[in-house]
């Protein structure tokens, strides 16, 4: 069982830092070898996880969810009420999405999601987070200067548009619902899903292009 002792775990971290090889690839190999040799994880399962994750879990899932919400007012209402439940229609529930909350961009509000304390992310609907989302710069700056951050992503907000930043401090996770672009009237869910980007669901993109992402 864990000690749940702050001083003890800090001491173990210092010991490991002084004695492990500095190359992170070797450190990961050490963890992998220990787990495999102790019969806790099979080597093939690790390879299978990496392939499964790359092939099956990713932002295409979130895009399909949002495309349906754009097309189906009842589904939209359910998504806004309880996104963690609504994604179960697609079987997309999983890691870090049980308490998922959808937040809607409007002509007057732009939503931006961050986790300043670690890097919480709705993995099961968006897949692996981008490196910048996990970076110190994004985590530090998104809450204090969201407009400057957005400008680096090419988003310039009029002053009339208010920014609402969501800092994911508990087990709620946030999914931004971008505005449906003009010129997509009559499009199918599949056509719409193709133009919805990962960044638009984090909030670092605002206007979607009509060209597939």
């Amino acid at each position: 069982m864990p000690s749940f002792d702050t001083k003890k775990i800090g001491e173990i971290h210092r010991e490991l830092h002084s004695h492990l090889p500095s190359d992170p690839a070797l450190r990961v190999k050490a963890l992998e070898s220990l787990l495999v040799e102790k019969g806790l994880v099979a080597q093939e399962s690790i390879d299978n996880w990496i392939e499964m994750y790359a092939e099956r879990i990713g932002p295409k899932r979130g895009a399909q969810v949002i495309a349906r919400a754009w097309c189906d007012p009842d589904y939209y209402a359910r998504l806004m009420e309880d996104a963690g439940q609504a994604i179960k229609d697609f079987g997309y529930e999983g890691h870090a999405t049980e308490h998922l909350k959808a937040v809607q961009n409007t002509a007057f509000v732009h939503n931006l999601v961050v986790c300043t304390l670690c890097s919480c992310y709705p993995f099961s609907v968006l897949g692996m987070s981008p490196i910048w989302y996990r970076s110190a710069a994004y985590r530090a700056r998104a809450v204090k200067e969201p407009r400057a951050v957005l400008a680096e992503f090419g988003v310039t907000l009029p002053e009339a548009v208010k920014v609402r930043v969501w800092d994911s401090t508990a087990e709620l996770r946030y999914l931004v619902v971008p505005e449906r672009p003009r010129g997509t009237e009559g499009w199918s869910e599949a056509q719409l899903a193709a133009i919805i980007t990962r960044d638009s669901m984090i909030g670092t993109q605002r206007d979607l292009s009509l060209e597939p992402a």
Partner: protein
Amino acid sequence: MDGPQDLGGKESFGPIEVDAPDYREDWEARQWALSKLSSAPGVTIDWFRHGIETMAPSVYLSVPYFQKWNVNNLALAVDAGQFTLEECVAGHAAERAAPAPVLSKDDLEEMQRGMAADFSRPVEAPPGFAVGDQVRTEARLRPGHSRLPGYARGAEGVITAHHGAHLFADEGARGLHVAEHLYTVEFRAGDLWADAEGPDDTVCIDLWEPYLERP
């Protein structure tokens, strides 16, 4: 704790690498797999996060993200008695056990779906606050793990949602399963930062009741 993880509002990190890929190195995807496929016995999500927070700030801020996960997985396993420090340094187990069963991609997709975890719990105590209430966050720093970011300590905001009671992170990092009422609190940027770029922009933070008081 006032650890290196509490980055909100810290300055001088420079521009964001907006075009960076999901992974820079193959070992990062591998570490992600190892973290999701294994955990030392009894580890809570809050103890996992707290472990990373105890890294020396100079190390925390200088190593790649998944390297922190890697050393933390090793540290938590040593702490729980699953690995020894010597085994971690050697990179091999002192004794070999029977191999684990192989999980197929379909098995793993199902496992991923099963990771949906409900943190809400029933509690007897009624909520102390309601939507629309003005609240102030506590100004003093709590010992151990806390999910009240430093930039929002001693700040006034408005409750915009009540989520029922959820397992309280501070106690989870002590191995205890205690639920407290959880709220979303919206803060005006101008109340958080003297030099806010848009004073009426807001930051919403999910906070448990023990962090909050009436102003």
